[in-house]
């Protein structure tokens, strides 16, 4: 099996690089061929960037990204602002909204939060009463309070959060990571997406885990909530494991005969793909079978409770996946987009996700995995201190609108400094005023933890060297241990 895996690695790289536009692809191909003993005329070519190995020593090997789609309200969860309470019902002072230039989001009355905040952990980090479990993991968390982004629309903001740009079809974070590092997984996809919903929402979709202009072998594979976790994992009705194995053996044998005639190395890759497909079929049931987990673990993730079962299952799966070599797991929970009925709906999403997210961090820590696993919690933006003006006509159904200027995200594990707060927003939680972190900075930091230099992890496309952070981004050293 290891031969096939190596072969798969070489052949996929070779095919991938051969199909690249000139530039780096050609250079790397020359190197590869040289490695394989094929003479190359232009041996003076050197590749300034070696793929598949980090640029420097990583602190994290895996990433679990808890993407809270829709924009969770930081003012009701993480950022306790006395002035918010004091100005409740009054128009928001002009000084805050002077630069607000949105077509739909307007200044209006300030809306206080009914939540109560308390400090936990050695560091005294504040959380609202809606996150009783996550607050207990405060000593592992780095809370980044002055996040900011470029847009207040969902899809462009999610594209920015996931792919580093508001434009479609650029590679996603998980794709860049696997492009840079490869994957240790022999039986599972290298980048997996898990989804959960508190209600139907179209906030999330394949554009967020696309491979863009990088090879589609790096694309996120969405595990499905209904039926087969990976599409077509189950054999057709009546096809037993023996029948399937017999089919695979037959296909492999004939492909091998063809390979010997045509010497088309793509056939070898195809044979390896079929073997990997079979291994995925074998591995997935084991992955999904929680009977080897203790009752305590299952209870910790809330699997026994209907409210937390879905997200709990996803979080537990995420841990199991990284144990089995999946490099990058992205969990989407939608939606946190509380334009209306914030006080009624926010507790629902917290109720579904708080306990499992905390369990994941605790479980990783207990198993000694947290040091190598970077966990990120957050959405594409936050929510406004002022009441939603667009849709709310009365206070009972009030909510908050999208807010890109100052919001909170959390990081834990994988080289991040736990029990630590970075950045501050102003007295109303409107703008970040200290240690502001842009999405590009977040990306630079994530890549840094994985041992990748965001300025060197590039791909030549359409005549320029693209990278996840485009032409921006700085590693936020204050976040690092």
């Amino acid at each position, binding site marked *: 099996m290891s031969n096939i895996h190596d072969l798969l690695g070489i052949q996929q790289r070779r*095919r991938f690089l*051969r*199909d690249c*536009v*000139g530039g780096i692809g050609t250079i790397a*191909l*020359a190197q590869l061929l040289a490695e394989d003993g*094929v*003479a*190359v005329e232009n041996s003076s070519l050197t590749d300034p960037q070696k793929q598949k190995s980090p640029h420097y020593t990583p602190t994290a090997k895996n990433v679990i990204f808890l993407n809270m789609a829709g924009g969770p309200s930081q003012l009701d969860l993480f950022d306790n602002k006395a002035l918010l309470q004091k100005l409740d019902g009054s128009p928001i002072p002009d000084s805050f909204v002077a630069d607000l230039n949105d077509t739909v989001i307007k200044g209006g009355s300030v809306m206080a939060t009914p939540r109560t905040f308390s400090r936990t952990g050695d560091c005294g980090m504040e959380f609202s009463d809606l996150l009783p479990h996550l607050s207990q993991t405060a000593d592992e968390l780095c809370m980044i309070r002055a996040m900011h982004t470029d847009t207040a629309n969902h899809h462009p903001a999610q594209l920015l959060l996931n792919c580093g740009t508001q434009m*479609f*079809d650029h590679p996603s974070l998980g794709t860049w990571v696997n492009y840079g590092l490869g994957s240790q997984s022999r039986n599972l996809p290298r980048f997996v997406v898990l989804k959960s*919903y508190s209600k139907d929402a*179209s906030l999330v979709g*394949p554009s967020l885990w696309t491979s863009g202009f990088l*090879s*589609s*072998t790096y694309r996120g*594979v969405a595990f*499905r*909530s209904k*039926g*087969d976790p*990976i*599409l*077509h*994992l*189950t*054999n*057709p*009705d*009546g*096809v037993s494991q023996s*029948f*399937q194995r*017999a*089919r695979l*053996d*037959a*296909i492999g*044998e*004939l*492909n091998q005969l*063809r390979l010997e005639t*045509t*010497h*088309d*190395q*793509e*056939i070898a*890759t*195809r*044979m390896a*793909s*079929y073997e*990997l*497909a079979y291994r*995925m079929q074998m591995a997935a049931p084991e992955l999904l079978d929680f009977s080897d987990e203790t009752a305590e673990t299952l209870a910790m993730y809330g699997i026994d409770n209907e409210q937390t079962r879905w997200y709990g299952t996803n979080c537990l799966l995420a841990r199991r996946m990284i144990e089995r070599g999946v490099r990058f797991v992205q969990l989407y929970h939608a939606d946190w987009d509380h334009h209306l009925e914030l006080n009624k709906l926010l507790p629902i999403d917290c109720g579904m996700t708080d306990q499992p997210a905390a369990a994941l961090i605790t479980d990783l820590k207990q198993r000694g995995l947290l040091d190598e696993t970077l966990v990120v919690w957050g959405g594409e933006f936050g929510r406004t201190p002022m009441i939603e003006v667009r849709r709310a006509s009365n206070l009972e159904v009030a909510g908050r609108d999208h807010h890109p200027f100052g919001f909170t995200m959390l990081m834990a594990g994988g080289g991040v400094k736990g029990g630590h707060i970075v950045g501050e927003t102003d007295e109303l939680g409107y703008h970040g005023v200290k240690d502001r972190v842009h999405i590009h900075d977040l990306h630079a930091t994530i890549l840094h933890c994985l041992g990748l230099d965001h300025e060197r992890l590039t791909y030549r496309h*359409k*005549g320029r060297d693209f990278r996840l952070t485009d032409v921006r981004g700085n590693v936020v050293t204050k976040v690092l241990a």
Partner: protein
Amino acid sequence: MWQDFFGRGLVSTSADFGTRGEPPTHPELLDWLANELIEQDWSMKSMHERIVTSATYCQSSTVRPELSAHDPSNKLLASQSSLRFTAEAVRDCTLAVSGLLVDKIGGQSVVPRQPEGEDMEKFGNDQWTESEGEDRYRRAFYTSTRRTAPFPQLETFDAPTARDTCTRRERSNTPLQALTLLNDPVFFEAAQALAKRILREHHGNLDQRIEYGFRICTSRLPAASEKKSLRASYQRLHEILQQEPTSASKIVAIPNADMTSADMTSADMTSADMGAWVGLSSILLNLHEFITRD
């Protein structure tokens, strides 16, 4: 155009014909082709015919080490390239060979069979209602497109997403493709139909039928070693199904109520016989060669 026939354009950077792109590998040829297009009254069909009847196009794609050593990416076109089919061609050829493909041109988009839950992220409220009757088996070209919920089989085989311009499709080679060809109900149904077609159109013995099936799938006769392998596979599959009679009856079951043609069993064939033929047909449809233009 050249890119479609050879896998790589005369200018390989099809997203960039500018100064930062690659120069043409055969500038005189490119000039000639450009002139020829004008002289053929801008007829794409004439150009296609020109290209595919050329000596360059008709070369074998068998890899010759002495050529790869000098020109690893085959820029100079000393041989043809083996190219995996496009996403649409994978579906269309599978349906065509199995006799299921409906040739009808024009009309409304159709909604092929799709597993439940695939369209959860789609924008809007319209439901993905599976087409019935002959609309199940139309060319992939007619598949209804949703940007927010792309049709899985097409996405798996690198069809463009409609979110961005695509000047050159990738030809990836992934386990998800393997799973689709092996297990997707549409493809398994095609295997059933192919089995029926072979048995209906050829009444010879096992070896002869194997040869017939191989030929209609690959446009060539199998080598002795290939025939031997297929015969052994048939026997293995048959053996398994004899031990698993319930499996056999499921494999030969009619997949949907629309199928009104003769059912899968007949007087002189057992379910195990028939089921082994379905298995063999699915093997042929899964060959690398079947989804590759050599």
